[in-house]
């Protein structure tokens, strides 16, 4: 490998502490060519001011759950690795779309490659486990090497560095509101019923510094998107719960998102010039509606725009006339006409989409611009390969943007599908937004071979909350109910366990050297 002279297999025995993040238990490392081993127990690990291996451009770190390795470096105050390969991610990539008999953990990977599982079956809590861990990882690395696309594996590792930073940063929460919500949740569900019952505020992990932290679960979906659990992660929970997001005093947060990302990806990758031109108008759905409007005097321009939006987005997911009709609440005949019109307007896109499907079933595999692959079998729903390029390349774009933004000093609190939630002191917020927009433009330009996607920005300044317009009415109702419950509950006078006027700095929790969980109950 160009420029890499040492390959170190690393195991920290990391554990996820809810609301806090990854915490190391010990360290076991092995250099693969010299077979030099280094072992540090818990005490020695926290006493070490630097890692017992190089982290520069000439060293490659190999591990399992790469973001946890980086998080351990962050919590120990160690320099971050320049090159990292996560065998979990690479295994998921190689076996993506196929049945994994023993799952996609270390044991699953070891079994997949025909190795003995005994070394991998351990609790990962003791130094003995650590030694077995690196032995299993070493064997796995050698077994995977012939199939590894190392440069792109390292690019995926680069994202895990960003992901670890993001997980450690967390999302600022209105802890007073959160505590009240948690305290009165049963009453609220009883009062409001099914409109809120799908949410589980008590499952959200909030640290005592008032920040929500949940595993991003990078590369967990078939398309390689992050797939955080909906119970534990605020960004995957019902949208109205995001109203709990509130910047700390003197700070602001901003949501920077790509405008019409999936439409733009489809336009750029298919090379459909009309689709590209429509994207560049700023509102492709309106452009479609205006061209089509002459024939449909029965529908207003806005209605037609919404119908075309549903159509254009649905088409990327392989929607049919009946489903589209239900979605736009119009007869199936009209939905069929919209779909026909889309096919007429964007013939090159459709040829490309047909080619994607043909390629997928012919070769049995599809891949993104940076080699995230998926197996396609006769059992695969044909809609999946057609949609895969938009989703997988959207994920590539988001990962690059996260890397660029964090490497340029932006505090990213969370990625969310096609958006980044960032945070900065109020006086620096505009600059942070500008840097983030530049990162996102560059990422889209690289993924789409010179076609940058537009971004839009929503800023929230202390003491405002995260906006979620769709849940305005619901949130007002919850707010009223909370006020009423708080008024009738004498206990509301006491400080909520999470509520601190001046949250302690994150380092007090993440750098907790006693290894104790410091999450808010």
């Amino acid at each position: 490998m160009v420029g890499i002279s040492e390959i170190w297999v690393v195991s920290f025995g990391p554990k996820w502490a809810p609301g806090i993040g990854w915490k190391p238990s010990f360290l076991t490392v092995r250099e693969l060519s010299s077979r030099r081993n280094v072992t540090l127990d818990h005490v020695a690990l926290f006493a070490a001011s630097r890692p017992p291996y190089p982290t520069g451009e000439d060293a490659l770190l190999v591990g399992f759950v790469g973001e946890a390795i980086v998080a351990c470096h962050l919590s120990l105050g160690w320099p971050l690795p320049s090159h990292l390969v996560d065998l979990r991610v690479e295994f998921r990539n190689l076996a993506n779309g196929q049945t994994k008999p023993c799952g996609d953990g270390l044991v699953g990977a070891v079994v997949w490659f025909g190795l003995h599982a005994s070394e991998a079956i351990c609790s990962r809590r003791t130094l003995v486990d650590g030694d077995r861990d690196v032995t299993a990882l070493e064997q796995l690395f050698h077994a995977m090497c012939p199939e590894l696309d190392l440069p792109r594996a390292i690019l995926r590792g680069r994202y895990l560095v960003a992901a670890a930073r993001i997980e450690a940063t967390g999302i600022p929460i209105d802890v007073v509101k959160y505590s009240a919500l948690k305290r009165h949740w049963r009453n609220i569900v009883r009062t409001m019923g099914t409109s809120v019952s799908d949410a589980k505020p008590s499952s959200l992990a909030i640290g005592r510094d008032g920040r929500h932290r949940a595993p991003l679960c990078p590369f967990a979906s078939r398309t390689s998107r992050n797939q955080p659990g909906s119970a534990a992660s605020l960004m995957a929970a019902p949208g109205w719960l995001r109203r709990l997001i509130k910047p700390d005093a003197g700070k602001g947060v901003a949501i920077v998102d790509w405008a019409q990302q999936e439409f733009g990806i489809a336009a750029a990758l298919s090379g459909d010039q009309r689709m590209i031109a429509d994207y560049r108008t700023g509102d492709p759905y309106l452009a479609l509606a205006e061209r089509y409007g002459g024939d449909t005097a029965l529908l207003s321009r806005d209605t037609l725009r919404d119908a075309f939006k549903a159509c254009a987005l649905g088409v990327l997911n392989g929607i049919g006339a009946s489903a589209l009709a239900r979605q736009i609440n119009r007869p199936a005949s009209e939905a069929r006409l919209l779909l026909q019109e889309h096919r007429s307007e964007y013939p090159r896109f459709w040829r490309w989409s047909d080619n994607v499907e043909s390629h997928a079933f012919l070769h049995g595999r599809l891949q993104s611009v940076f080699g995230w692959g998926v197996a396609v079998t006769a059992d695969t729903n044909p809609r999946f390969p057609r949609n895969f390029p938009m989703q997988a390349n959207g994920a590539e774009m988001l990962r690059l943007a996260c890397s660029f933004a964090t490497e340029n000093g932006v505090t990213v609190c969370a990625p969310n599908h096609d958006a980044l939630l960032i945070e900065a002191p109020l006086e620096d917020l505009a600059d942070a937004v500008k840097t983030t927009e530049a990162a996102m433009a560059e990422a889209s330009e690289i993924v789409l071979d010179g076609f940058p996607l537009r971004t839009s920005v929503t800023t929230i300044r202390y003491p405002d909350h995260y906006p979620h317009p769709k849940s305005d009415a619901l949130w007002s109702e919850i707010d009223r109910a909370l006020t009423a419950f708080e008024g009738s509950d004498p206990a509301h006078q006491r400080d909520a366990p999470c509520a601190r006027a001046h949250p302690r700095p994150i380092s007090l929790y993440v750098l907790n050297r006693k290894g104790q969980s410091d999450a808010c109950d």
Partner: protein
Amino acid sequence: MNDTIDPPDDDDGDKNPFDPRRLRLSQRFSEGMDVRRILTTVPVRKPHRQEFIRVHPDPAMRLDVALLELKEERQTYLVDPMLWPELPGETAPKTLYAAITRQGVVLLWPVRLPDETGRLDDWNTSAHEGAKRGETQWVRVAANMPLGAYDIFEAVGQFPEPVWPELPFERLLEIGFRDRFIDSLDHPVLRRLRGEF
């Protein structure tokens, strides 16, 4: 697997092997190389009133034929020229135009030719006019009952040129009339018309 795009030239010679710009893979999916669409169905019908169509401008891509239409079954049969004299009044002389819709559907559009007296009604005259215009423009033909003829609408905007299948007209005929070609007086359709069963 897809091809790797050639990495961009790096003037300063400081080439980072992990630069994402160098690692990008093509998403062209072997356009037009792996598979080609096989034309298996060619409808024989006039274009729907909502359909914009183009007509193939090559004279070799049209043919004057005799067609036998069974209205009840909505089926059109191509009749061997040798049988025309044997079937007076049963067949109709028509031009079959090769046409294509904006959705890429190839069809054979039959338009009636003048009868033995040389007369042609306004419906068919306007349809031929529509086909003529369709050689260079996207057109839509819609029946105008009070007028007794087709209205012809030309697309005003700039639309991409149609992509025609690389097939001779004979092949389109073969596909379009696969099992609807009458080449003998013993053909079941003719026997039924004669009341033999």
